[in-house]
């Protein structure tokens, strides 16, 4: 369903931008309060719930035993998928996975995969015969804006708490999955002509294109995505890239604190 964008909303967002203000009173680079809960789903081998303003997202990790790809006999696999089901918002319709769902899952997937936080060889049990397939499924329950960051955070937090169910599959004792790093996504949307961090539902509705940046622990880029209609300049990117470092570091601390508990 295509959402109706009231002309007045775009006008108001443009007017606020002139004074460097936002609809909900936040600063331009200020995020909403984030709460993170892990190990919250019975039956998932790793799980996390993220609440970011009105956005609520769950992620669950499952394992399966499979035969490795012939060209990579000693490597397991990682897959991350997202579902934007109609539970999450009136605008989502039932049916096969939408292009938005697929984009969302793949952007999160790339950030985690390319950060190298999972050593694929460590997922090998018998080369050429038996490897672990790790699957992260992300479930958006309420879309209150910026689901990308919420999904990215839920996925990595769930992965970092995952326990490999070796006993259930008769291949040894259960052990904690080794995850080397915490890739984090930061998203920016053009609202009222300039970029802001962590858009709300209304800001997304009246906004334009968005940019998603996933950074690893060392501050290296691991995935980038520009979505929706619009263009940006290198100078604009340089500005949000700097902010992304700060926000990613904060969220990485949140994950670490949660694990410390």
């Amino acid at each position, binding site marked *: 369903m295509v959402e109706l964008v009231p002309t007045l909303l775009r006008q108001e967002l443009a007017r606020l931008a002139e004074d460097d203000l936002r609809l909900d009173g936040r600063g331009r680079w200020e995020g909403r309060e984030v709460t993170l809960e892990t190990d919250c789903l*019975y*039956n*998932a081998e790793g799980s996390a719930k993220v609440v970011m303003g*009105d956005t609520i997202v769950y992620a669950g990790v*499952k394992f399966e035993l499979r035969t490795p790809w012939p060209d990579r006999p000693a490597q397991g696999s990682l897959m991350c*998928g997202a579902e934007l089901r109609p539970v999450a918002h009136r605008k989502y319709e039932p049916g096969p996975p939408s292009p938005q769902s697929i984009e969302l899952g793949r952007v999160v997937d790339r950030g985690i995969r390319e950060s190298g936080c999972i050593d694929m060889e460590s997922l090998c049990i018998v080369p050429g015969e038996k490897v672990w397939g790790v699957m992260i*499924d992300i*479930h958006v329950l309420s879309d209150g804006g910026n689901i990308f960051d919420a999904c990215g955070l839920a996925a990595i937090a769930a992965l970092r708490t995952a326990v490999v169910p070796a006993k259930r599959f008769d291949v040894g004792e259960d052990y904690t999955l080794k995850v080397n790093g915490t890739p984090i996504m930061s998203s920016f949307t053009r609202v009222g002509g300039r970029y802001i961090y962590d858009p709300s539902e209304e800001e997304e509705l009246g906004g334009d294109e968005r940019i998603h940046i996933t950074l690893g622990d060392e501050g290296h880029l691991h995935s980038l995505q520009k979505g929706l209609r619009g263009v940006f300049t290198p100078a604009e990117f340089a500005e949000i890239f700097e902010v992304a470092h700060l926000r990613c570091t904060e969220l990485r601390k949140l994950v670490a604190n949660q694990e410390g508990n």
Partner: protein
Amino acid sequence: MGGYGDVQLLRDDGLRLDGRKIDEMRPVAIEAGVLPAADGSAMVTHGLNVAVAAVYGPMEAHPRKIQRQDRAVIDVRYNMAPFSTSDRIRPGYNRRSREISKVTAEALESVVLVERYPRSKIRVEIEILAAEAGTRCVGITAAAVALADAGIPMRDLIVGVASGKVEDTVVLDLDKAEDNYGQADLPVGILPNTGEIAFLQMDGDLSPDEFNLAMEYNFKAAAEIHEIMVDALKRRYEGGEN
């Protein structure tokens, strides 16, 4: 029901494996209004089951061919999250979820005053986040609370409950092992105020007497869960008159 006879489900002291009495249900907790984007919502935890329901509408029924000129249609989707069971479920609809969605929709249509909203659709989305036997019942309970939370007029709530049979004994509210290795499962949707039944399924083997006892347990559990539902709805709006 799965194979039985080889797994012990009742302990020597007459209690069940998880320590419950035969007519004791698992702990239930309900919260209304948990999803900000929905018109009404609820989360129900029943034992280790977790179900979330969202309600959207009433809205114009699309596509046109599903429209009813004299009443609203209730469009239910029951879905198990991929990580909700011990073996991952491939995302998407399957025969089981379609059947449950259909009979759940018909149960809800029996209590919602659908004739108030001709040509409309009320969307009910049931998502199972964690499954430990009895998810369709937990989903019905969640849907009923979400509908009330959305302000949809109904002549009663519906409570989803199940009883069954293990080791030739009728027990209330089967857990996972009892569901897998038991002899019968009888899930029902009960209207707590009128005592009518809007949802009924059963599989396995029950004698007429066992059926009657199972229904007696179901009614008892429905009354208990109803209190928790009412409490959840009232808690959402505590703090003074409107």
